[in-house]
């Protein structure tokens, strides 16, 4: 995209230089050049360091809503599972960080740049490492596909995203416009992503878990467990509000998994390691 735009602006600016002879053609061309610049602005993406800075701000806000669970061994365990999964993806070099939030709500969150969190309430409903891997891989997929950045670009703060992309806002140094973006990013958690983004993260999550050597049915197993919880349980309210129906997510996976992931049959779920890690404390 960037190369294309560069080419387009070249096309426009060249004639300006070459045929700078008369009145009206010149003005039109200048106008055209400005339009190109504007289009360029609207389409420019923030770079990776900016993505990481913005994501760090959003993650920090999330931790303002719910702190980390004070259990360093489990935090490190979840980080190892998550990092191993991330290594099987197209963005292995992001500064991936995983955390368990000290909250009974059942939910999981991702922030741009490689931040992934699950709640203690969700962890407590899992029965093996493959399930943990499936959920983390779903969140990792949101980061890989930059779903939150896209939501920000489409939202009320799209102008600020362009400004950030064009270095009009510095991603470090406390620009108040940056905190507006960070707040907008945090509010996406209350509103939810596009349904299609959730389905995509499900489809990618099971594959990433399979690539990492896990039984890929961990994610659907968790969705099934959640399906068996009383839907009026207030701990599920936000997750239900911000995600497609569990039944729809499960039937979508049902239609895809058995064929394409047949080779993963027999991959371990590491129920033993999961149980020992969580009961250690």
């Amino acid at each position: 995209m960037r190369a294309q735009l560069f080419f387009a602006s070249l096309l426009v600016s060249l004639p300006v230089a070459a045929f700078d002879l008369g009145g009206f053609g010149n003005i039109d061309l200048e106008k055209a050049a400005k339009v190109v610049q504007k289009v360029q602005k609207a389409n420019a993406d923030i770079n990776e360091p900016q993505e990481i800075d913005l994501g760090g701000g959003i993650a920090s806000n999330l931790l303002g809503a719910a702190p980390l669970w004070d259990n360093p061994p489990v935090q490190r365990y979840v980080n190892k599972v998550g990092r191993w999964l991330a290594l099987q993806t197209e963005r292995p070099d992001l500064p991936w960080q995983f955390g368990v939030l000290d909250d009974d709500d059942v939910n999981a969150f991702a922030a741009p740049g490689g931040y992934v969190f699950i709640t203690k309430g969700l962890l407590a409903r899992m029965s093996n490492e493959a399930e943990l891997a499936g959920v983390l891989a779903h969140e990792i997929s949101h980061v890989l596909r930059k779903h939150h950045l896209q939501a920000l670009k489409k939202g009320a703060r799209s102008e600020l995203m362009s400004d950030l992309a064009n270095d009009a806002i510095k991603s470090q140094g406390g620009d108040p416009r940056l905190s507006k973006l960070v707040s907008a990013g945090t509010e996406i958690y209350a509103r939810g992503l596009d349904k299609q983004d959730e389905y995509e993260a499900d489809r990618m999550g099971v594959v990433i878990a399979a690539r990492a050597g896990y039984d890929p049915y961990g994610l659907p197993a968790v969705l099934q467990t959640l399906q068996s919880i009383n839907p009026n349980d207030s701990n599920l309210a936000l997750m239900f509000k911000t995600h497609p129906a569990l039944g729809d997510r499960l039937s979508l996976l049902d239609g895809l998994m058995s064929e394409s992931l047949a080779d993963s049959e027999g991959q371990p779920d590491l129920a033993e390691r999961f149980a020992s890690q969580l009961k250690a404390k």
Partner: protein
Amino acid sequence: MNKHSRWLMALMVCASMQSGMALAGEAGAMSKADEMKAEPFRDAKSVKALAVGEKLDILSKQGGWFKVKVGKATGWVHMLSVRKGDAKKGAVNSSGLLALSSGRAGTGKVVATTGVRGLNEEGLKAATFNEAELKRAEANASSKADAATFAKQGKLVARSFDYLPAK
């Protein structure tokens, strides 16, 4: 560790894994019509046809398969053809780890807070920077090398699979 005790260890791990997988007769029902198979494989022999809504007991799980009992018949059904539990009865948890979330497990430290907090809509909208907590999160991060060692310990082998297409 000599050869013999390694074997013994492997056996013990096997045995405990089996018990870890048991779901102790959790209730479920067919979410769509499907076949009960003699073994947990797609091309295994069919035992009987199950109709949508048919009630069953889930005995254990293996990969994408549930070992189930329907009436007098026992066999394997693809996990995604089954709907687990009875939602009206409330939470079902087979792992026994639910105590974690009660806050009474003695691990969750109560942190003094002011104002709205929590992972609900109001809490998220009111949330403000917690830089110290982000630093703590960073401190727990794993290196690539750590992750690879950890995977090896769990006998996890990386393999290549293509992403699934959208339907």
